[in-house]
């Protein structure tokens, strides 16, 4: 069992979310940087979809009441176990009773903790993820919460000492694929999007990354009929400033999507910090 001592700005339980229910209005949810959660799980011998903990800008502390193997991935939050520093992307042993502390990452936004056996809070619609848009799953963690850990007996061995992970760039370049509604925009809108830097604004969250920069001009007025939305969509509200949809995005929307992030760029989008400058390219 893991006891939450401090949480930092936002700490939630996340697995790989609730696919398959979008037609009922249920967001996909799950780890915003799913690649990082999968890696953390593999490092401790878990199935990739086991639930772990997602930290936003670190700042948390957890007390382990039983010994465990853990791995921390994603934004490189300085990790201390029982007061001693440990590296990221590496399985670490936590003795019973030890305090595990997460500092402020020097880059990126979201860090992930996997614990061998997985966090086994109750499932809602097949997932343990906290969905901040629709309030499904457990509430965000608060001091005093206790997280159960599943059994490790049927898991594979821990076989890797450290996984090589490229550093998070200062100015990420995100690749986009035009459409599905690029024809709702003026001819130079896509050119503007892919040639000018945008800045991440502080009102970004797990629903979406809000951006500041040159507005994207519409070629037509009127309202789009509401249609299904994908993770990574760049939805453009009337302000002309695109929003990148992340894990907790609404399932349908009525603003046109000028472009969608290429799948390999989704983890980078989930690691964007307020104030950071980014570039899009085709």
């Amino acid at each position, binding site marked *: 069992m893991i006891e939450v001592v401090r949480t930092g700005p936002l700490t939630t339980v996340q697995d790989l979310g609730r*696919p*398959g*229910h*979008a*037609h*009922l*209005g*249920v967001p*996909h949810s799950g780890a915003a940087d799913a690649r990082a959660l999968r890696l953390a799980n593999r490092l401790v011998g878990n199935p990739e979809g086991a639930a772990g903990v997602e930290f936003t800008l670190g700042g948390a502390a957890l007390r382990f009441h039983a010994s465990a193997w853990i791995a921390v991935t994603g934004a490189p939050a300085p990790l201390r176990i029982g007061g001693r520093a440990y590296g990221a992307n590496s399985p670490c042993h936590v003795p019973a009773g030890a305090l595990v502390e997460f500092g402020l990452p020097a880059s990126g936004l979201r860090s992930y903790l996997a614990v061998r056996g997985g966090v086994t809070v109750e499932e*809602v*619609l097949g997932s343990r993820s906290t969905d901040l848009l*629709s*309030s*499904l799953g457990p509430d965000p963690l608060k001091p005093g919460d206790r997280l159960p850990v599943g059994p490790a007996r049927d898991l594979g061995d821990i076989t890797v000492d450290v996984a090589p992970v490229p550093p998070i760039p200062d100015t990420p370049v995100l690749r986009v*694929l035009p*459409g*599905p*509604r690029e024809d709702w925009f003026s001819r130079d809108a896509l050119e503007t999007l892919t040639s000018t830097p945008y800045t991440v604004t502080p009102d970004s969250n797990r629903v979406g990354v809000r951006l500041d920069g040159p507005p994207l001009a519409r070629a037509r007025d009127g309202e789009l*009929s*509401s*249609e*299904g*939305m*994908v993770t*990574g*969509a760049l939805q453009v509200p009337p302000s002309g400033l695109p929003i990148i949809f992340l894990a907790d995005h*609404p*399932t*349908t*929307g009525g603003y046109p*999507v000028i472009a*969608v*992030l*290429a*799948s390999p760029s989704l983890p980078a989008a989930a690691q964007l910090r307020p104030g950071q400058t980014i570039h899009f390219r085709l």
Partner: protein
Amino acid sequence: MKVRRAGDAALLVETGDLATSHRLDTAFRDAAPPGIVDVVPGERTVLVVTEPGTDLDRLAALLPGLPLPDDAAGGADPVEIPVVYDGDDLDEVARLTGLSRDEVVDRHASADYTVAYLGFSPGFAYLTGLDPALHVARRESPRTAVPAGSVAIAGPYTSVYPSRSPGGWRLLGRSGLALWDVTRDPPSLLRPGTRVRFVREEQR
């Protein structure tokens, strides 16, 4: 039907109208091609989300050959939703429409509805079929909390709030029917294409 790409793992199919969206949704679920994660009908579209790495060209090529059912609801009976019409906005809707309270209720309770699509919150169904006389704009300032079961209208739609949430729709009444229950499979009583009738209940 025009097929658009929504990134590298989804297709957005333009169906032109809601009925075709529902028929294509049903056809897709019946055919169940491999690699499909989600099928999301919209008013004039169906979004098909796939596992990464699924061959989208091959999927798009399947579309013209899919047999569309005549009736997306498969001839199922309408879901009957009992409503006590005592909503906080009845008087305002009457004023906005120039109808009496009773006429507002009669018109709302006598129409046949179809679930267009779900969104806004889990289980929140946008029902089409609302009497045009009842098409009113949403409130200028949304309520911070609308109770679960509230029956409401906005624009061309009516809905029942499946859970407590903020909301800007005009409240006509309330229903005790549990539309949304995460312990049920499926959790939502309503899905795209479901037909719905409201049944007037006396005040209890």
